[in-house]
């Protein structure tokens, strides 16, 4: 059901879409606060100052390769989602559902690669209070932020994948309602991509 309100100055706005955008604004503040806190923790650090990768040699290249691969996966999933919305608007429900399926699959692939990356990192001893970490005082802070922020982002990816799974059947059925629901899920998914666009350099490149 599409609900519209008269705004009086900007024409009509879908209340659902405005609601999604307000939710995304609250998410911007959430991630903005966490990332600012991380930025400040590393800015003045003597062990892992911002400007060069904080990872010690062990596993750094492998971790960067997995994270770069995950960046390509998430950008591709955003592209397929945008195409799904375009197809849905044109009434091509089968193509829209197919592209949504690709998006969902790429989201799952992102989570699998992330799980692999975590297991590699833990295998190297990169986790708070490990014996390896005890030898590099100060690195605990970086690793804690790494797991907190990338883990929190992964939870958002899970929520996005679940959302896409819920609407997939409806998108395949077609109709204006399906296009709108797909657009809302798409907005959330692109936001998750935007967050990763900042997390990638902050945790792997500088």
């Amino acid at each position, binding site marked *: 059901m599409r609900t519209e309100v008269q*705004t009086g*100055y*900007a*024409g*009509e*706005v879908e209340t659902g*879409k*405005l609601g999604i*955008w*307000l939710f*995304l*604004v609250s998410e*911007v*503040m959430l991630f*903005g*606060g966490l990332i*600012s806190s991380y*930025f*400040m923790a590393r*800015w*003045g650090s003597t062990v892992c*100052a*911002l*400007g*060069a*990768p904080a990872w010690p040699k062990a596993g750094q290249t492998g971790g*960067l390769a997995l994270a*770069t691969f995950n*960046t*390509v996966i998430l*950008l*591709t999933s*955003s*592209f397929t*989602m*945008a*195409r799904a919305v*375009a197809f849905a608007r044109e009434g091509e429900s089968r193509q829209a559902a197919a592209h949504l399926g690709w998006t969902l699959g790429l989201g799952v692939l992102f989570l699998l690669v992330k799980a692999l990356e975590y297991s590699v990192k833990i295998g190297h001893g990169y986790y708070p209070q490990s014996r390896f970490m005890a030898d590099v005082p100060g690195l605990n802070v970086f690793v804690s932020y790494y797991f907190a922020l990338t883990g929190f982002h992964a939870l958002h990816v899970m929520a996005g994948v679940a959302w896409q799974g819920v609407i997939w059947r409806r998108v395949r059925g077609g109709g204006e309602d399906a296009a709108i629901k797909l657009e809302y899920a*798409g*907005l959330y998914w*692109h*936001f998750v*991509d*935007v967050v990763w*666009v*900042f997390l*990638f*350099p*902050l945790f792997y*490149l*500088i």
Partner: protein
Amino acid sequence: MKDRSRLTKVFVGLLMLTVVTVGLSTLALSRKAAVAAALAVASIKAGLIIWHFMEVRRETAWVHAAMITGLAAVLILAAGLLPDVGGRW
């Protein structure tokens, strides 16, 4: 159709910017320059996603207002941190 062609161009641009940001990290830049370069490329990528994939360019003033409010709040937070950043570099 025209829309989908535009989306493809944006996607290729995003992949190229990913190569650029990884490439920049291999250069012997100063810490400040490395941070500035990485955040600049990330901001361009985010802008492309927001403008083209999230279709902010087509949205109403209400959505623009919501987005600008969020952006402004983060910028105010960042501005509040600047004195501490300057003192610890």
